[in-house]
């Protein structure tokens, strides 16, 4: 059973009530996270899982008080949070160590900030460095250490202040596979043996296996806007093994939950930019990547496990999902219960000649409102050219600070489908 088995009525540490975080204002306000309700009990290890851009890191920063919510309340132990959460610390993705301080000084400075006198500080820092297995490296500078060792220092620093709530912001994603695996094991050992006074862990990740391996509960988030789409309890006994069938099953179902949410809340493709109503965002994928995926699917006989195909193409979830989403939007494939299904259109595409492919692609891509709108605007213009800024300004109404990104994707798609292109010298888009 999980670590919370022994606790019958665990107290609630953290409670998020209808948290929203928006950027900009007015009707076209961009919601980073919307209407998040979540609570965390003592003894729990909860993982926030979702594709990039779903606002999971933003949520973590709201929990720790590094960022503030636009609306809704954060309560910690029944008290509404104001400023930085004094019970929480973060382990950062990029370690966030001070390069000019030694390992020991990096750990000590967290204690210094809490007003711990210097003699006690040294003792505690040394002990922690021992615990995480970095003894002998006290006087080394971070740049002398490997990535895995740096993150150990990150953990030691966070644990030094004995936080009740330990927040992890993709702590293993910048490490090589082996270091990440061993560090995960060490953290779980400390946590399960209760050798650290931490009461609860909240980990942000986009790695499904990692979440299943470590967490008691997985909170799956979707994007546009960032929201909670499902919660999955993990009842597997520790230590968990990746090869177990029960583990594999759970990974599959979590994969299905995540992939099922590549579609935004609104099902239709939406209206053209500038028109009332939401506009379908273009996923951040290259069309030649999509072509590759479609061919791979065709080779596999038209159906493949999403999780497995990601592994075979060595694509992270964050890289695979946008491609899948693009395929889905263009009607080349669909997702069913964690499986990728090649649609008839996709099959035809895979078998078509290069020329025929271009034509098919042009037709399908033009269904996307952003692309169609750019294409029409260029066609209506007398010399079939319009300034890049013209499109950017209009797109900003719909996409805010993501407008430039959207325009870049649109140009890349338009070029690939030979609909329109961009002239860097004049800064204009023009019809092909």
């Amino acid at each position, binding site marked *: 059973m999980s670590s919370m088995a022994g606790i019958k009525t665990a107290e609630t540490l953290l409670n998020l009530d209808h948290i929203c975080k928006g950027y900009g204002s007015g009707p076209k306000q961009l919601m980073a996270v919307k209407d998040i309700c979540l609570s965390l009990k003592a003894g729990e290890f909860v993982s926030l899982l979702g594709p990039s851009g779903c606002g999971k890191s933003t949520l973590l920063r709201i929990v720790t008080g590094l960022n503030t919510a636009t609306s809704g309340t954060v309560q910690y132990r029944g008290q509404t949070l104001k400023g930085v959460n004094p019970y929480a610390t973060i382990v950062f993705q990029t370690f*966030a160590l001070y390069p000019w301080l030694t390992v020991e000084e990096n750990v000590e400075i967290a204690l210094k*900030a809490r007003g711990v006198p210097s003699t006690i500080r040294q003792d505690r820092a040394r002990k922690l460095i021992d615990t995480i297995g970095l003894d002998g490296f006290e006087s080394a500078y971070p740049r002398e250490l490997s990535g895995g060792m740096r993150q150990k220092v990150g953990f030691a620093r966070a644990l030094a202040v004995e936080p009740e709530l330990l927040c992890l912001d993709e702590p293993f994603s910048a490490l090589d596979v082996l270091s990440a695996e061993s560090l995960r094991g060490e953290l779980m050992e400390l946590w399960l043996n209760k050798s650290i006074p931490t009461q609860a862990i909240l980990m942000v990740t986009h790695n499904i296996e990692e979440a299943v391996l470590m967490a008691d509960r997985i909170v799956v988030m979707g994007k546009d806007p960032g929201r909670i789409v499902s919660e999955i309890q993990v009842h597997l006994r520790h230590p968990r093994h990746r090869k177990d069938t029960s583990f594999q099953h759970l990974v599959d179902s979590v994969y299905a939950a995540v992939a099922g949410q590549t579609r935004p809340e609104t099902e239709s493709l939406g209206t053209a930019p500038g028109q009332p109503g939401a506009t379908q965002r273009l996923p951040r994928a290259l069309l030649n990547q999509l072509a590759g995926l479609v061919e791979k699917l065709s080779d596999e006989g038209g159906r493949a496990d999403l999780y497995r195909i990601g592994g075979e193409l060595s694509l992270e979830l964050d890289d695979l999902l946008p491609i899948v989403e693009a395929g889905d939007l263009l009607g080349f494939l669909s997702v069913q219960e964690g499986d990728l299904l090649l649609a008839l259109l996709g099959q035809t595409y895979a078998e078509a000649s290069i020329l025929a492919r271009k034509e098919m692609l042009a037709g399908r891509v033009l269904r996307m409102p952003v692309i169609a709108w750019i294409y029409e605007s260029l066609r209506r213009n007398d010399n079939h050219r319009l300034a890049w800024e013209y499109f950017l300004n209009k797109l900003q109404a719909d996409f805010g600070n993501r407008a430039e990104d959207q325009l870049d994707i649109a140009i890349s798609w338009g070029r690939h489908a030979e609909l329109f292109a961009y002239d860097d010298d004049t800064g204009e888009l023009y019809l092909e």
Partner: protein
Amino acid sequence: MKQFYYKPAFPPKPAFTIGDGLILLGLAAILYGGIRLAFDAPLVVSGPEISLSPSALPWYALLSVGRMAIAYFLSLLFSLFYGYAAARNPSARKVLMPVLDVLQSVPILSFLPVVLLSLSAIFPEHIATEISAIVLIFTSQAWNITFSFYQSITTIPSELREASAIFRFSSWLRFRALELPFAAIGLIWNSMMSWSGGWFFLMAAEIFHVGSHDFRLPGLGSYLKTAAAQGNLMAVLAGTGVLILVVVLLDQFIWRPLLAWADKFKIEMVEGDEEPSSWFLDILSRSWLMDFFQRRISPLNEWLDMSFQGKDATDIAPGASLDSKRPAWQIALAVTGLLAIIYGSFMAIALMTTLSLKDWIELGVGLLATLARVFSSLVIAMLWTIPVGVAIGTNRRLASLLQPLVQVVAAIPATALFPMLLLALLRVYGGLNIAAIALMLMGTQWYLLFNVIAGAAAIPQDLRFTTDLLGLSVLDRWRTLIIPGIFPYIITGSITASGGAWNASIVAEYVEFGGKTYATTGIGATIARATGTGNYALLLAGTLVLVISVILINRLFWQRLYRLAEERYRME
């Protein structure tokens, strides 16, 4: 070779805004204030005698270094406060950054006459001259240090910031453990730049002689000028030797050790292949002295950290915005400032209306003449620095051979050599004209050379090999690879260089040498003559015309080129 590369800081959009106009009016108002004071300046100013005896040299050198040091510490303090305020307070930033941007492109030397005259109206003559020199050096040093500090503070990686917030650092601890270390390397590099700039201005400020106003300070600059004026070649050589010695000593005992020490503050997580080293630091860090100081300093540090930590341990989240209500005193201050600007600039304009059309024509012609000199010095500098720089930059052996030599030669402030140039050239026809261009050239060519070397060294090896394989002719090779590759570096070098050239015009176009006055057509000459004859309206108009023209040329010409270079030709 990357350590040579100096990149000016520019705001994202090079437009001329209402704010810039307001800042210029403010400058006009300040200049008017200075001129108003200058009305009461003593009519005859005569400085102390400068002794040419070699035994006076150590004392003079010490005085010059002392002035530099005082001005530098003032600049550093100013930079830390100003940069910090601009970085941390968004509403202060809206005022502070545009002001800084204008100030850094103003030719500082053009203020020298006004500063000297106005201060001598308030203080006794030698104190006034002393303060003017320090003010002048300060204004030449402060801006780029401030920009560097501001840029560092605003580019601290967000996770490092968040870490200091989540562990609840006090503002002091955050400054000491995060912000200052992060900014350290930039501060040191820019301090070195500022010192070499400072020498240029000190040499000019120690002796400024127009008409009955003979401002001078005992120091290396005045020694050199006096020696040249008297034709005392031995003294000239001795003075130059001591100056070079001082520059080299400072480099070896202050800047190199500082740089080597500051290497630990770099943010890159990999060990670099070319780490700065210093023999002096090596000796120092092995000595008991360092140990002794460290043991004295660390309890003090501890005490500071802990006492600040108690006070404001509750830091606001970086994302959380401060209450944006403005207190009444801020509004009152802004209104007062605005009124002062309006009054001052109105009076300045009123004063300038007393000028005749002939004066304005003289200013216009002078401006064009100086502009022509600035550009010809730039073109001459390019003609030799581009081939030489490319040769050095693409050849490691040549680079290691020439680098120390070039560094020492470049460290000699051009203004120190100017008297010698005069000695040699004044008898030739059009000599002052040639000497003026030569001074501009000496002050500017090094910036260009260093940048070209850095640019040539940055051209990727693969591209050079590809060009070799294609068998391009020399002309094509330069056209397709070398010129585009070093273009951004030429532009950045030219911007700094032309700034230096404008400054040089003030001291180069009008000189009193060996009891005779030499002048050529130019706005610098007009400013100097106006100072000498006490024509304050002309002095004000000349300074303003020069300042505004240089800012406009920067905005309309250089910054556009710079942006083009950054967008099109950056090899990254």
